[in-house]
């Protein structure tokens, strides 16, 4: 017996169609959401305002003065069936190296200001807590797990240019950490955060509820568009990008910052074809292949 697979369609008022692929997070759902988004985008429909693919869902904004809402739903349902029917799930994307100073003083200082009433564990920092809830020996082991396998940008949003990241490992190896009990009012810019099964990079300073593990050395949002990677657009990440975190120490972090200040920093990245079937069948082997692409640069 074949299982009927269909997303859930619902309206966010008279301007938004919301399509929930699945309730839970999975790589397949994310791929379907992004594929529907791309297919819809390429139709160039008049009255379509914005397409926001998310982790396991899709938010579509339309202008109801121009576009009939029932027609839109019909179109998206047809695209969903096309996407589900296509045999190979391949995404032309890129793998990018993101240097991170883990266990840095900036996030540690901020974390120490939001303990009582905010955090589950008054002792130690967020890394110690994350290691504990994942049954790992210590923060160092958690850091290793965090950067040794690459991550998929499963969604961009919350604030300008912030990527949500889903690690390309089996579900039983996913790092899961509860969010803060109550959101902080402050998070340093470029903090590597984690909540549920998602990591993120806070593109700008501000409020946040994710656990804090370190800081990225270079910007991912640049409204001045000074750096080469931002010449086309102020936001760096796109859904479908693959991220490899690379741990750096303080001297390396400072060296990268100097390059950023001088306007000479460029991200190390390589184009790749991302095959969802292959990564699901053998995440470890597939990750090695992707790393070879990056290391060839």
């Amino acid at each position, binding site marked *: 017996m074949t299982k009927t697979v269909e997303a859930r369609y*619902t*309206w*966010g*008022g*008279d*301007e*938004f169609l*919301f399509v*929930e692929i*699945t*309730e*839970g*997070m*999975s790589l397949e759902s994310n791929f379907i959401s992004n594929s529907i988004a791309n297919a819809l985008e390429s139709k160039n429909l008049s009255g379509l*305002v*914005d*397409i*926001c*693919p*998310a*982790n*396991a*869902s*899709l*938010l579509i*904004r339309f202008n*109801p*003065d121009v576009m009939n*809402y029932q027609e839109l739903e019909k179109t998206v349902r047809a695209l969903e069936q096309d996407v589900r029917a296509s045999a190979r799930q391949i995404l032309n994307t890129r793998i990018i190296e993101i240097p991170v100073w883990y266990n840095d003083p900036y996030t540690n200082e901020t974390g120490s200001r939001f303990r009582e009433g905010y955090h589950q564990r008054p002792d130690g920092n967020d890394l110690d807590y994350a290691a504990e809830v994942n049954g790992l020996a210590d923060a160092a082991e958690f850091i290793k797990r965090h950067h040794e396998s690459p991550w998929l940008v499963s*969604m*961009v*949003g*919350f*604030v*300008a*240019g*912030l990527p*949500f990241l889903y690690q390309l490992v089996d*579900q039983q190896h*996913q790092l*899961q950490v*509860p*969010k803060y009990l109550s959101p902080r009012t402050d998070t340093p810019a470029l903090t590597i955060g984690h*909540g*549920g*099964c*998602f990591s993120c990079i806070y*593109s*700008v300073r*501000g409020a946040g509820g994710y656990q804090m593990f370190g800081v990225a050395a270079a910007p991912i*949002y640049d*409204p001045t568009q000074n750096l080469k990677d931002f010449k086309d657009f*102020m*936001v760096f990440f796109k859904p479908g990008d693959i991220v490899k975190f690379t741990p750096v120490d303080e001297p390396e972090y400072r060296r990268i910052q100097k390059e950023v200040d001088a306007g000479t920093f460029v991200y190390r990245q390589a184009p790749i074809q991302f095959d969802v079937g292959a990564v699901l069948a053998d995440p470890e082997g597939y990750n090695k292949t992707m790393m070879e692409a990056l290391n060839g640069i």
Partner: protein
Amino acid sequence: MGFDIIEPGLSTTVQDQGRIGYYRYGIPQGGSMDQYSASLGNRLVGNTHKEAVLECTYIGPRITMTSDATIAVTGAPVDVFVNGDSVPQYERLSLKSGDELKFGVIKGGTKYFIAVHGGLDVPEVLGSRSTYPIGSIGGVNGRAIAAGDSISIGKKIDNGLPVLQSIPEADRPVFSPTVNVRVMLGLYNHNLSDKGLKKFLDGEWTLTPIADRMGLRYSGPGVEWKKREQPFGAGQDPSNIVDAGYAVGSIQIPGGTQPIILHRDAVSGGGYAMVATVISADMDLVARSSPGTKTRFVSVTMDEALEARREMTARDARIWS
């Protein structure tokens, strides 16, 4: 050509019709929170819908004109003074170079607007002049206005419409201490228990002081969620979902206690279940609320929402003719 900011007010930002189409990158639509009030200002000074205005929050700026200008103040009721003399809102005003514009105490709502003929000449970013302070784009250097800023006025405009001296009383927005906000149930309303949904729709909700351009938080009877096993990656609380896109106007209820209506500077996504969305025709009504405003959420259908939108469009067309 323009004016100098002597005092900036509490939080005064440049806004226009908004920056549509970048929500997928986490960049909110922005724009004047009460679009109708802002558009009345543009109509009075002879602009089009598109010109940028100043949006004032509770306490407005003190401004000195550096050139002659036609202006209008619309939106929330407030005392307006030119060179110390009281002048009316919702009227076309002619200011001379050197004139000082300032404001008294607000008497309802939270947002009022200063429109100037020619519009505010700040650079467009991604097709809009609206200020998005978190992302440091739009407005004056990506931030609220500050003392010492000089703001230029754009070129003269011929909008082809007859001059309107004053907005008739019947066309002025109402700032009421009690409002019925029309919503469409949807998104994750099925996660509410029957009792929880009843509490949401039957309850009286009071706007708290935690309200700004991003969202407005209400206190009231709270809601209840169905008991269920949380899906993978969603988080433990029954109000959590796998992080998803947030519809503008959607209502989330973190922890099941205080509903939050996301408004024009909303975060574009997150992990809290939304149970309904304010219809597009009532977003301005929400923007006119002030802390203490008693609010009921009234469930309507898509067809009713679209009918309300048609009425809104028809009123707009009448004023802009």
